[in-house]
Each structure stands twice: as structure tokens, then as C-alpha cells.
């Protein structure tokens, strides 16, 4: 976490925002259980650290536009865990009902969209990536062996825009995408990125 100290802004990818908000009480009043994303405790610890140091979290409009699909992926992934099925009292092999998944999806979305009103979060609506930087990033990732992306997919345009955003603004980028963070040092040494940190590698 010390690696983030001293920077006024820290760029987050959308998944980190979603994980920060992924804590849902069921039912909302007098909850009987709470469903959290697997990375939620880490996302909260990092974000609370930043907030306590008066640092701000930021992201690009393009990344924020991916919010709904990021929420769906996080919810769909988590609600398929046996751990969650068990919390809900479902027998082995019984899937979580779609209405409960929807309940969690809507709750996370409400929470994330409220971030826009928080003083510590800044949505950068102005950033427009430099085309030549994007082309160089594209060539860089196209030139990597598939196995180096691990279980992650090759970065999409919006991911590369975030890398370019960090570079242009000189903000460290926090991501849970190994498809980006695995290449942090090479990208930086090639002048294609600023500092990139994987969310899970940040020690509270």
C-alpha cells in the first residue's frame, strides 16, 4: 500500500470499483446474510487507506461505461460459488435463483453509481487517449504469448485506454486484471505505462 502513498489520484479499473461496492445485505433491513465479492475485503482495505490519506480514486468515462457488464460478471461469478449457495441454504447442485442474483446486481449497481457523489471519487470525463499510444499498446499486447495472460483475456481497448490514462496523467493504476499487471514492468520500461499494481499485490 505504501507504493500508492503520495499520489493525489489513483486510477482504478472498473472491477476494483465494483469489488469495493460488492457487499449486499439480504434482506436489506434486518439482514440474515451478507454476500461479498471475493476481492471486496482487499478492495475496501486499499480504498479506505487511500481515503484516510486524502487521496482520490479516479477512472475514465470509457471504463465507467463498462460498469453494468462488470457488475454482471462479478455477480454471476460470485453467485455461482458453492460458498454462496451454501450461505443461502441451497442444497448441493441447486443454483441461486435468478431473482436473488438480480437483487445483488441491482444493489451493487446502486452502490457504485452513488460513488459519483463521493468526494474521494472523480470520474474523468475529459480524458481522450492518444491514438499512437493505443496503437503501440496494441502492438505490445499482440506480441505477447497467450500463456502470459494467464486466465485473463488479452486487454481490450478500454483496458489499454486505462493504461494510457495512467501514463498521460502520471497516476498509478490499480487493476485486478493479470492480463495487464503481469506486464507492468515491461510496459513501464517501454514507456507505455506509468505504475501498474495488481489489487491483490497491495499489502494492507
Amino acid at each position, binding site marked *: 500500500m505504501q507504493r500508492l502513498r503520495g499520489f493525489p489520484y489513483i486510477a482504478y479499473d472498473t472491477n476494483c470499483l465494483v469489488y469495493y461496492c460488492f457487499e449486499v445485505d439480504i434482506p436489506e433491513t434486518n439482514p440474515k446474510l451478507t454476500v461479498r465479492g471475493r476481492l471486496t475485503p482487499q478492495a475496501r482495505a486499499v480504498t479506505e487507506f487511500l481515503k484516510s490519506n486524502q487521496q482520490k480514486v479516479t477512472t475514465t468515462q470509457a471504463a465507467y461505461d463498462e460498469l453494468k457488464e462488470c457488475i454482471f460478471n462479478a455477480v454471476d461469478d460470485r453467485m455461482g460459488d458453492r460458498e454462496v449457495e451454501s450461505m443461502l441454504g441451497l442444497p448441493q447442485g441447486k443454483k441461486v435463483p435468478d431473482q436473488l442474483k*438480480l*437483487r445483488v446486481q441491482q444493489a451493487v449497481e446502486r452502490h457504485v453509481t452513488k460513488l459519483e457523489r463521493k468526494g474521494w471519487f472523480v470520474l474523468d470525463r475529459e480524458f481522450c487517449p492518444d491514438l499512437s499510444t493505443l496503437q503501440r499498446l496494441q502492438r505490445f499486447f499482440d506480441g505477447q504469448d497467450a500463456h502470459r495472460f494467464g486466465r485473463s483475456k488479452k486487454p481490450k481497448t478500454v483496458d489499454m485506454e486505462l493504461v494510457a490514462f495512467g501514463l498521460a496523467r502520471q497516476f498509478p493504476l490499480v487493476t485486478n486484471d493479470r492480463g495487464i499487471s503481469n506486464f507492468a514492468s515491461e510496459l513501464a520500461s517501454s514507456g507505455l505505462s506509468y505504475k501498474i499494481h495488481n489489487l491483490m499485490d497491495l499489502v494492507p
Partner: protein
Amino acid sequence: MTGNLAFAESWYRLSETEADLATAPHVIRVCSTSANAIQWPATRHILSPSFPGLFTTRQLNLFGDESSDIMAVVPSGTLFLEQKGLYKNEGDPWSRIQSTLFIVGSVAHQTFLESMALIPTSYDWDALSGIISNTFPTAGRLDLRCFNFWAVTKGLGSSDQPEALRVQVQELHDEVAMWPGSYNQLLLAGSLDYCVSALTKLKRSPAAVQMHVSSAIKRYYDLCAGIAEQYGETKSSLRRINLQSLQDKFDLLQETCAEAQVYPRLKDLDPMDIPLD
């Protein structure tokens, strides 16, 4: 109503309003066919019952051994209605039907239907084949194994309506649940799943509440069915559309169900409240 079935203008518009049902005959008899191979020079209309459970049917299925006869029928001037809805054979659970009704436009067919109408509720093959032979003695060849004959009765008791709607909504949910996952896909699947549960709980409610809530769910279901139909061929593009309007209507539906004390809003839902399959 005998013979002259579905010629009333109100019946052509059966799908549009429930009020049309008031003008519909109490009992009509129609023929239906799924004979895709037959090319009919006819106009097609969609007959979508404005309320599920509108029809009960009694079916004479000619697919058995006794349907091997080749009968001679060439319809002309036939008006078609595609029937999409639910049917229920007596004693059986509700099932989905999508078949084609043909409605007589020519004198010969009108005679045929009038004759059909003379057959009481139980059809038998001899009576049916006799009518067809007498009505269309010189027509071309048509394999009647392609035909099903239905007696269609309008008007179920209100207690049947939530269950009939539940089957319909469940079916759409099961379909949408198989679509590529996305935020919008879960909105559709989750809200339809909610409707199924609400309809299950609704059976215990007084008749007036049943009518009020099931009407609200039916309106919501129609919206979802329209979206599902629109994107049925391009399922992955569903993720790119803005469904805020549907979301708002689902919020209102939850209010309706909660205020009627039928089923809680999603945010107030205890997993234990979800009825078992």
C-alpha cells in the same frame, strides 16, 4: 356459437384487450393444423389470447393408427389465425400451443365448420371423416395426419388464471435464462423468476387480489415477451440496449406485489420466501 367461428371483428382483435373477451362466444369450435407442408392461399393473423388460460381445449389427435386415411380437402379462401397460447387437455397440466387455426372463408368450409359444430364435445374419427368427406367430395388430396382438431372453450375460472400465467412466465424465464449472460439478460431472467414466485404465492390470495396482481404481471410479461421476441435471433445484442424503462416497470410491479401482500420487493426478500419449484 356454431360454425361461423371467429368472424366477429372483436375476435380478430382478441390479442389487444381483455375487453374483447366480453364479446367472444362462450364456446367456439375450431380446427387447427400444424401442417407446414401445406401452402394455403390465405391471410395470416396472430391470435394471441389476451389472457393466458383463455382456452381450454379438447383435442382429437389424428396421429394414431386410425389416422392413416387419406382424405381429400382443398381449402380455398381460408383465413388463418396462428394460435399462440396455452391449452389444457382435461385432467392434464397446462401446456404451450403454437398451431394454426384455419377459419372458413368459402361456403364449403363454412359448411364444414357448421358440421363440426354439430359434433358434441367428444369427437370420433368416423364422425369427423364423414363430415370431411361429405363437405369436400371433389377436393384434392391432403393427408389428414397433419391435422389436429380442437374444441376450444373460452373462459376459465379466475382461480385458473394465475396458474396458467405462471406456466407461461416460467417458460419465458427458462428460455431467457439460456441466453448469453449480461446485465440485461439477468434483468429479464431475474424479474421473470420473481414473477413466477409471485404467481405461485398469488394462488392463496382472494380473487380480487389475484385479478389485480396477475393483470399487472401479465402486462410486465408482455413487455418481456416482446423484448425476447425482438432479440430472439440476435441474443447477444441484448446487452447493448437500454432497458431502463423495463427496470422502472419492474420496480412498479414489485410495489404492486408488495402492497397486495403477495410477495415482497426484491430488496426485502428473504431467501426463505422464495417458493420451492
